[in-house]
């Protein structure tokens, strides 16, 4: 069965997100720890021993209006939770 091709419009819309980072925090695993980093940033905002601590920090920043939202990634990089 032939694979369904993606529309050019959709491919471009995904690509465009690379140069338009959102004001979003990402909670991701790194070397057995959890980091909070701003989208597109080369350095982490903070490194924490547990995922729950990292989520707590990200949530506090969202509630304080310092960032629009935050997403939590699982160990495979997929988004498992969104904090708004």
């Amino acid at each position, binding site marked *: 069965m032939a*694979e369904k091709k993606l529309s050019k419009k959709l491919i471009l819309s995904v690509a465009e*997100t690379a140069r338009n980072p959102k004001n979003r925090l990402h909670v991701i695993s790194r070397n057995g720890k959890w980091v909070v980093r701003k989208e597109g940033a080369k350095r982490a905002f903070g490194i924490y021993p547990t995922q729950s601590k990292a989520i707590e920090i990200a949530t506090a920043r969202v509630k304080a209006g310092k960032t629009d939202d935050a997403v939590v990634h699982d160990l495979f990089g*997929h988004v498992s939770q969104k904090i708004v």
Partner: protein
Amino acid sequence: MPFESNVFINCPFDKFYVRLLQPLIFTVVYLDLNPLVSETKSSGQVRVERIKKLILNSKYSIHDISRSEALQGRDLPRFNMPFEMGLDLGCQSFGKSKLNFKKSLVLEKTKYHYQKVISDIAGQDIESHNDNPEELIRKVRNWFAAVLNSHQPSPTLIWDSYNDFLDRMSEQLKAEAFSKDDIESLPVSNFVILAKQWIGLHRKDSNKK
């Protein structure tokens, strides 16, 4: 793409492995190389001919033999990966001119597992990933930095970018009515094109900063 940039990826396609295949493809593209994957479920003869072509056209190969054992109790081990790895290593040994310069990386789940199932490959570049995508990115990036003998983006930068990409890609696909299942089982060719386009703009933008 030229022979020097092509990377033949020989790996399983089970639902679990997709979670490792995607970061593997993302890393290869991030290093400015071209992943070649044969996902086609065609008849045996057609498939093997296609794989031989991919092997002949790729200077680099990555063979993941981590599924050479049953995933669960009643599953059978998969032998396609060791078979295709044998074809590739044979091509390197018996091939002429540029084929003698082919390089291969063998990935396994746990360190030294290969010694129990396929000890004849001792002496090849073999790395374990523990089914962990971050570790897989690090091992693949470090191997390419060594064989290409050039500076490459850090494993951490690739891992962070991969997380950003997955989030933004899923968001755009969901907006176009792709379900979670659709996104998770995205055909490899679709994933490759999305990753290539995204990384192209991402790297251009990063270089400006």
